């Protein structure tokens, strides 16, 4: 290992690192591309967040206050598209770019130019999507699910939406191919599949999901495009088409998409909890099989999103029971994380705090998901704020908290500096308090019958909407701390050693902090891999 470091230290001028803008525009280095993905995701997080502020501002009181209904609907639609495709997915790809080569003992991703291409598609896709706010008729307003016939009524923004979604899909597919090819071909000798860190495992399975379902979304929106412009009637009832078929195709993509957003989170939590419990992960292999099971099951539950559309009783029962089955591998994971902490020597640094919040709050989202999966109950909950509360518990204190946990965990490795942990803990506590103030009351609103995607509501929903909006403003403001902590760390953090966290295991911690430009120019030794793989 010492040899490797000496090698890196004496070869810094062999990096062939371009300088200035060329370094970023022509980037082929996995760390540079990872950084660009993360900055892009953070930017989109704040743009999507600003849209959420507009939504919560309008819903602060009943009646129309600030925006017209069309614009409100555009905000809900664009908020979802921006957060899912612009913030969470690119953040995961950024983390994958940074960490996978370092964790598997590779110098870089397998296909660096493809990596550059898949990143640079995204700014164009989102510029196109966001510019639809300024075209006649306004931005897409039919919901992120793009159900026909409603979506076909969009004006000039419709082709912009379809083209943007195609580009996002292409970017995701190319990124996923790169991840699969890297993991399957670039692992260091001795890095067997069952020695891989859980983050690499979860990303491998996520990448398979992406390759399988993003083309399905692309196919669906291509058919929407031909229905709109070329006279086909795939989803137009008047021409013999079937709008419900779109819903089936969309959710065949949409449910695995939920796991695309959350599986890498499972990987990160499985890295962080052992580190700050100073114990190996409990049941490593069970965790791998649980993730694989969840991914498999994600393909056979899609119609639980559309129970009220109408389907045979047997289909309802099948989709209800298959949905219930997901609780089994998910329960295995929650049990194993808890068992990892059992009798551990716990400490509560910011990554661990976010991981613990994930554990509690994601589980709340999981439980409400089970409630929604029960057919007769779903007839009451469908299209209410209960659904909004459910998926936000899964995606915000679930996926977003896990991304923040990952950034706080690996930031010292990336920069070679420790951030202001006190400030990061402020970020954590404010986020955790306000995220619950924001989303928990939405369960009550939904159970009381408040429909989702409406700019106005009956007066009996006022109190909890006010509470929710206050939580939203607080959560939004608290997030400003996140880029500040990172900026402060980069500017003036205190230097750290290779192993920034005392209990950390894995190949990435054997590299210098910050790591060399090309991660593993020589394959790590088997002993090093075995030490890192002490799951």
């Amino acid at each position, binding site marked *: 290992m010492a*040899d*490797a470091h000496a090698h890196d230290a004496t070869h810094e001028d062999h990096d062939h690192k371009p300088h200035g803008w060329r370094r970023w525009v022509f980037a082929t280095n996995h760390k540079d591309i990872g950084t660009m993905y993360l900055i892009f995701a953070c930017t989109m997080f704040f743009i999507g967040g600003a849209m959420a502020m507009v939504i919560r501002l309008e819903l602060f009181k009943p009646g129309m206050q600030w925006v017209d209904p069309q614009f409100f609907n555009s905000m809900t639609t664009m908020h979802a598209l921006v957060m899912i495709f612009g913030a969470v997915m690119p953040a995961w790809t950024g983390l994958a770019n940074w960490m996978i080569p370092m964790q598997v003992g590779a110098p870089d991703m*397998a*296909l660096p130019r*493809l990596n550059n291409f898949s990143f640079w598609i995204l700014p164009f896709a989102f510029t196109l999507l966001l510019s639809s706010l300024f075209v006649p008729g306004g931005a897409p307003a039919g919901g992120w699910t793009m159900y026909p016939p409603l979506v076909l009524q969009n004006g000039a923004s419709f082709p912009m939406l379809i083209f943007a979604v195609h580009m996002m899909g292409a970017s995701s*597919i190319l990124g*996923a*191919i*790169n991840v*699969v*090819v890297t993991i*399957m*071909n*670039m692992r*260091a*000798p*001795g890095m067997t599949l069952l020695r891989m860190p859980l983050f690499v495992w979860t990303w491998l399975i996520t990448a398979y999901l992406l*390759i*399988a*379902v*993003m*083309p*399905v979304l*692309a*196919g*669906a929106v*291509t*058919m929407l495009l031909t229905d709109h412009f070329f006279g086909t*009637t*795939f989803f137009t009832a008047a021409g*013999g*088409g*079937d709008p419900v*078929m779109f819903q089936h*195709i969309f959710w*065949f993509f949409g449910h695995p998409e939920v796991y695309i957003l959350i599986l890498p989170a499972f990987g990160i939590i499985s890295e962080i909890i052992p580190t700050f419990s100073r114990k190996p992960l409990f049941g490593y292999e069970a965790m791998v099989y649980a993730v694989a099971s969840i991914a498999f099951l994600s393909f056979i539950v899609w119609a639980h999103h559309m129970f009220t559309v109408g389907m045979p009783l047997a289909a309802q029962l099948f989709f209800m029971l298959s949905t219930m089955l997901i609780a089994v591998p998910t329960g295995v994971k929650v049990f194993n994380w808890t068992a990892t902490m059992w009798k551990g020597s716990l400490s509560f640094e910011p990554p661990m705090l976010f991981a613990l919040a994930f554990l509690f709050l994601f589980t709340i989202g999981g439980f409400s998901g089970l409630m929604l999966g029960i057919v007769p109950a779903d007839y009451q909950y469908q299209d209410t704020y209960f659904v909004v509360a459910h998926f936000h518990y899964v995606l915000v204190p679930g996926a977003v908290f896990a991304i923040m946990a990952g950034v706080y965990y690996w930031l010292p490795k990336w920069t070679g500096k420790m951030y202001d942990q006190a400030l990061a803990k402020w970020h954590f506590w404010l986020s955790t308090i306000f995220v619950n103030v924001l989303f928990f009351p939405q369960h009550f609103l939904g159970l009381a019958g408040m429909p989702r995607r409406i700019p106005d509501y009956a007066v009996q929903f006022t109190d909890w909407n006010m509470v929710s909006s206050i939580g939203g403003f607080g959560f939004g403001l608290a997030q400003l701390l996140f880029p500040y902590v990172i900026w402060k760390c980069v500017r003036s953090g205190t230097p750290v050693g290779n192993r920034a966290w005392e209990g950390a295991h894995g190949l990435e911690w054997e590299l210098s902090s910050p790591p060399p430009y090309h991660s593993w120019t*020589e*394959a*790590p*030794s*088997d002993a090093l891999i075995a030490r890192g793989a002490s799951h």
Partner: protein
Amino acid sequence: MAAVLTSDAERARRRRVRNSAILWALVAAGFYLSFIVLSLVRAAK
């Protein structure tokens, strides 16, 4: 340190990388086209 890969091994790995990337791209294209074809077949009924 583990032995540095020989150039033959490196060439073989590059070939594997290229072939598997093409394979997964074809799988993705297959999913894209098959769902459109599926919809066409269903619409034709």
